[in-house]
């Protein structure tokens, strides 16, 4: 019996590819995007290794490995294609590691990598479906579960520097005279192992902007929100509140602006929503630093703003031709 003819004139000797339009594409892929993001993190990783030694890199490696393995396990359990070769899991794990103190024990890094993927992404449906930036979810869980192990000041007491945000919180504005802004910018401050490398993180962020992997709206809104809110506080009482430049350079502000707040899934889409999202997150950073019980407000500020994303997406123009 002859097989049924599925298509008239179909030709077996020359099989053409049939694909939906458009037939030209920008050629950009998730894999390329994640490779670029990992590349953008390298300067900060190198600076961290210079400052804290090889330990810092082993923490990054542990968290990244744990994240990738967890992603494989989760995808297997969900019976989905294992696509860890798009580097998204590795990137999320490395982001988490950047928030840890460089002396973090191995189990903390591994636990964070697992939580980033399992609790941050997989339970919501995987990469692209997380309502809150995945590394921050893991950071928050670890922060509440093992506060001593996560505490920057406590763990890094052996290093000849101070954590500017902790100093501000415990000793007030008067203690900030010890910090030279150039030192802060060059990363000579205690903080998350990669997230406090301000200059290196900024270089990576500018690379992502120049390569157009991220848009200006969120980082700009975020930094403007931090600077603007800090300026308002400063006007109210300069003896209690730090100045805007300090807030921009201290802790993980720069890291949050370029790498955490721009997380694709948890940030809103559209120009106006993204700017407003950045402004809110930035403002929250200063508010938490001024009134909160956590020294560095960046992680919680971004998580709060993430939860507002669905609401912010309503700020969109009318559709074409709709009156």
């Amino acid at each position, binding site marked *: 019996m002859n097989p049924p003819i599925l298509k008239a004139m179909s030709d077996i000797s020359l099989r053409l590819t*049939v694909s939906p*339009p458009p037939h030209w594409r920008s050629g950009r892929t998730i894999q390329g995007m994640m490779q670029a993001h990992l590349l953008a993190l390298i300067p900060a990783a190198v600076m961290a290794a210079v400052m804290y030694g090889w330990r810092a890199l082993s923490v990054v490696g542990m968290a990244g490995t744990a994240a990738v393995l967890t992603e494989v396990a989760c995808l297997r359990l969900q019976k989905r294609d294992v696509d860890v070769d798009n580097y998204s899991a590795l990137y999320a794990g490395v982001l988490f590691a950047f928030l840890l103190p460089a002396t973090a024990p191995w189990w903390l890094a591994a636990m964070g990598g697992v939580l980033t993927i399992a609790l941050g992404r997989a339970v919501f449906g995987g*990469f*692209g479906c997380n309502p809150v930036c995945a590394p921050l979810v893991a950071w928050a869980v670890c922060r509440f579960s093992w506060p001593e192990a996560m505490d920057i000041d406590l763990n890094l007491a052996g290093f000849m520097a101070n954590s500017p945000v902790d100093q501000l919180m415990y000793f007030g504005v008067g203690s900030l005279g010890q910090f030279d802004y150039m030192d802060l910018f060059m990363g000579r401050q205690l903080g998350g192992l990669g997230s406090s490398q301000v200059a290196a993180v900024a270089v990576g962020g500018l690379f992502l902007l120049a390569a157009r992997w991220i848009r200006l709206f969120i980082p700009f809104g975020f930094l403007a929100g931090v600077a603007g809110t800090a300026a308002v506080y400063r006007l109210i009482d300069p003896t209690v509140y730090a100045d805007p430049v300090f807030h921009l350079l201290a802790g993980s502000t720069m890291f949050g602006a370029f790498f955490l707040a721009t997380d694709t899934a948890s940030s809103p889409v559209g120009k106006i929503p993204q700017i407003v999202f950045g402004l809110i997150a930035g403002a929250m950073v200063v508010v938490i630093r001024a009134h909160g019980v956590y020294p560095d407000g960046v992680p919680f500020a971004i998580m709060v703003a993430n939860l507002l994303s669905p609401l912010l997406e309503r700020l*969109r123009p009318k559709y074409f031709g709709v009156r």
Partner: protein
Amino acid sequence: MLKIRYPLDSELANSIREMRPPKELHVNVRNLVLKVGKGAVLRKGDIVAEHPSKGVGAFHASACGKVSGVNYHSLTVKCSGGEETVDPVNVETMGKGLELLRALQGLGVDAALFKGGAEVLVVNGQNPEPGISVAQQLLRDGREEIHAGLQMARRLLSPGRTVLAVPKGEETSIPGAETVGVKAKYPYSLDALVVRAVTGREFPEDVRVVNVMDLYDLGKVVLTGLPITETLMSIAGHNYRVPIGTPVRHILDALHMAAGPGDIVVLGGPFRGEAIYSLDQGVKKGDHGLFITSSDSIPAVQDAACINCGECVLQCPARIQPHLISRCAEYERFDEAVRYGLNSCFECGLCAFNCFARRPLLQYIRFAKAQILAKGRETQS
């Protein structure tokens, strides 16, 4: 995000070239009402099929020959090489009205375009898509036909204002129409955006858009009285007059081009055109380009989840939300898709062009539109 720099205006060096006549025609008759059967002997210009809905032009044989095979998809005509044509119909002397529209429809003109009246008639003189220079070529080399076509269109529509939209900076004009410059960059060649550039309004009801290619066809029908049997195509930088139904294989042979296994062969433009599955498929009316892309030069589309990066929303000229529409279409929630702007979409394809996750966004949008249309028809009957 990649900045698209695909200008629509190009340097025209050559005049329109003729395509060697093919030995066989494969006229696309899918979803059409056939008017001839196997074995019928056709003159050039004989009607072979009609569209089931009103207002769409008839389809004609573009050469003399005998129908050697028919299936649901295409009608094969073995060309005899004869010169016989159908008798010309003088449409110019006909009175304005239904009779004239019917005659034009019988000659292959889409009569629905010219039915009723319009306050503003916009002639879209922009090349439709990057890589296609047909409109520009016609505005330079087909002025006589365009002029006749415009006169006929004005007679049918009696517009208060006639505007020719050309690429900004071009000095083209046609008698009886004011010239307006429009940004010569995709997607500003699409009808909806050209109308906005000319009138400042979005989807106005009293404006009719006709592109230069259709106007040229109309003018040719008016001047010769013969049906539309060819289309102009931009192929590898030159413009050719191609008989409708010419198999793509014949074009490739005649122009010494080659398509390998796995390549994507596109009829129409690179953004909105149709990828053919066989080189034996024939050229259709309204196909103005032929493109071959090797499949490994561009990452293929994927059935991947949306990562919510928002690139499609930032790129969309219609300000809609393709990422949400595609998610709804995936799970057959078409009514919800309408809420995210489905009806405002004019299908430029920039969303899918820019998608990092390589989702077939334009396909999802077209799918949702087609499903809603089908559902509407079901409830009507």
